[in-house]
């Protein structure tokens, strides 16, 4: 894509919000900020960040949004400063004293509107955090700003509606899938698996005392059949004791993107099912943010200590290493590449496992550049993928770097073990005419697994 600023048309990044009450937003913002500072652990980070910033602009070299728009308002450090200037002026000793003596920044309605959109331009992928010598976590500040804005009901409607259904709705999940529909779907997949392998491979439901209580991003049950079939094939083949809960079966947690309150409440639903079914461990399917959200179980677990959390990539890797599953190394001959979902790779967590799995049966594997911890965001991170009205922004701006990376690999299969990344990258590839098939890791395993 031509990055000449003059010729580029940058699609608007304007999401829809539900109608809010007209009120003094400045006072509202500050009241909420004060309450959050009082009860949470954000103050130490804010105190640190207002003091150490060197304004070196190193973050500009690594942000997929800025690298495309070249708009100075997309500089991560500038965006962070939108929130830090509020903290410095109203909540820090030195800042408020300085302001009383010399004046300076004041929070205005206009500034709040700036923050309202700017913090959703960011996908909170935290690639910039790896490059900031001062150690400022721009992703953390994006999260915090969005949390304050969420308390003012200034959150993209798409996310609020899904979360409302998940927490208060009858179906109790973000895609509003009732259990009866889920059960039908699973029975259909079991039939498919029976046809493929001539063997009964089941999705166990409500098994008490299972080793793994499994949560997939609920959208997978409707849209990523092959990922789920691949997971079921792996787990059944290895004789793993696992189950899905009939009462709550959604790993998705938008709270990670915009609200600590939502994050904790949604995780509470996982804990409830864990105790009900007396499971031993929590297993999350192919989803980056769902896995990272679930790491907060340790912070929010109410009764006792949180159980072990495992992502399916880690489990499949372990089973492969132990020889409990067999994959035919001759089945996949096409070129394969791997996209690292930010939420499981940015801090160096799950990087080698998916690669070792792929190397075991994909002879024609090629890395993206950069890869691993430094891989680029799909462009739909931080919840932005769920906001359909900004698709053009996501695919033509935010997703450009990913499109370039994929094109350069020339891969046929692009493996992305994350529900959000899958939707985003598929749409990006479509809107940018990038060839290839985007699928999950277990989709690929399904094509080559040997079931005896």
């Amino acid at each position, binding site marked *: 894509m031509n990055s000449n600023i003059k010729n580029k048309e940058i699609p608007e990044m304007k999401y829809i919000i539900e109608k809010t009450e007209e009120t003094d937003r400045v006072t509202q913002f500050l*009241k*909420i900020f004060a*309450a*959050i500072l*009082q*009860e*949470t*652990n*954000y*103050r*130490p*980070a804010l*105190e*640190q960040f207002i*003091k*150490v*910033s*060197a*304004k*070196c*602009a*190193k973050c500009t*070299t*690594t942000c997929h949004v800025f690298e495309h728009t070249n708009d*100075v308002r997309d*500089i991560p*450090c*500038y965006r962070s*400063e939108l929130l830090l200037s509020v903290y410095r002026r109203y909540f820090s000793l*030195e800042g408020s004293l300085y302001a009383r003596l010399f004046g300076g920044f004041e929070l205005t309605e206009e500034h709040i509107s700036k923050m309202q959109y700017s913090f959703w331009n960011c996908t909170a992928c935290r690639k910039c955090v*790896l*490059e900031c*010598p*001062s*150690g*400022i*976590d721009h992703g*953390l500040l994006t999260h915090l700003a969005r949390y304050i804005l969420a*308390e003012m009901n200034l959150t993209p409607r798409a996310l*609020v509606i899904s*979360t*409302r259904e998940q*927490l*208060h709705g009858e179906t109790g999940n973000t895609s509003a899938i009732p259990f009866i529909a889920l059960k039908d779907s699973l029975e259909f997949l079991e039939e498919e698996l029976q046809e493929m392998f001539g063997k009964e491979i089941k999705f166990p439901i409500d098994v008490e005392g299972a080793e793994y209580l499994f949560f997939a991003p609920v959208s997978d049950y409707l849209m990523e059949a092959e990922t789920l079939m691949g997971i079921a094939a792996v787990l059944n083949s290895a004789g793993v004791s696992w189950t899905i809960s009939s009462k709550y079966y959604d790993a998705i947690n938008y709270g990670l993107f915009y*609200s*600590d*309150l*939502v*994050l*904790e*409440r949604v995780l509470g639903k996982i804990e409830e099912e864990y105790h009900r079914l007396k499971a031993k461990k929590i297993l999350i399917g192919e989803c980056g943010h769902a896995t990272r959200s679930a790491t*907060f179980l*340790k*912070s*929010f*677990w*109410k009764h006792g200590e*949180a159980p072990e959390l495992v992502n399916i990539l880690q489990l499949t890797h372990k089973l492969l290493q132990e020889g409990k599953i067999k994959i035919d190394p001759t089945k996949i001959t096409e070129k394969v590449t791997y996209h690292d979902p930010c939420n499981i790779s940015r*801090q*160096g967590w799950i990087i080698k496992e998916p690669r070792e799995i792929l190397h075991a049966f994909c002879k024609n594997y090629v890395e993206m550049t950069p890869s691993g911890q430094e891989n680029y965001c799909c462009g739909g991170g931080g919840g932005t993928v769920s906001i359909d009205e900004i698709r053009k922004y996501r695919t033509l701006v935010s997703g450009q770097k990913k499109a370039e990376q994929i094109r350069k690999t020339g891969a046929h299969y692009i493996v992305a073990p994350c529900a959000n990344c899958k939707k985003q990258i598929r749409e990006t590839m479509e809107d940018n005419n990038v060839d290839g098939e985007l699928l999950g890791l277990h989709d690929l395993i399904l094509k080559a697994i040997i079931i005896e």
Partner: protein
Amino acid sequence: MDSFLEFLKGPFFRFSFAIMILGLLRIFILTLINGFEAKSKAKDKQLPMNYVKKLTIGYVLPIRAFRTKPVYSFVSIMFHIGLLITPIFLFDHALLFSNSISFSWVGITLSKEWADNLTLLTIFAGTLLLIMRVSDRKSRFISRKQDYLWPLILLIPFITGWIAANLTLEPETYKFYMIIHILAGNIIFILIPFTKIAHCVLLPLSQWITARTWKFVPEAGERVEKILGKEGRKL
């Protein structure tokens, strides 16, 4: 001029040096306290220590410096080397300290040649940093007043120091340069704890503080709702 110079070398130097040491000590200790308080409020006390250590060491030492903007990083490192080594290991400064405190490092000071070269390196690198900041659109957009002023202020003691040490000056002119040199140095000491130069003690704590912050406080969200009068309200 003589009494002013004596004032700058004596009481004002002691005052400004104390402000710097106490100021830095204060924010370092407060940051530690903040971090440990965050630990006590959190239920999950575990940190990704490998990641924290890797990034802390990577940025305190110039290991990760060249990943991005390598030219800027190189100039910055040269500037820091000159900035730190020259004043501390200058023979004249070491002698001044040994006259007033019980230990001395006069034995490990720089030769005049090294001192002069490092001073010129610092001046050159500092000027380059300023030029790079001013000439880059992105840097200009995010820079504050202090980001432009600091390279200028820091250059003053180095320029005046080099002049005083190398040029043959009339006694009154020499005293004038010394006044500027010491006054600038003292002002720098006072400003350090209150500006971004505080990064000299805070930078090593950044990754740790951030990691602690990501360990959220249980039920904080609900308590925030209560404070805002939204308890029990649905989304």
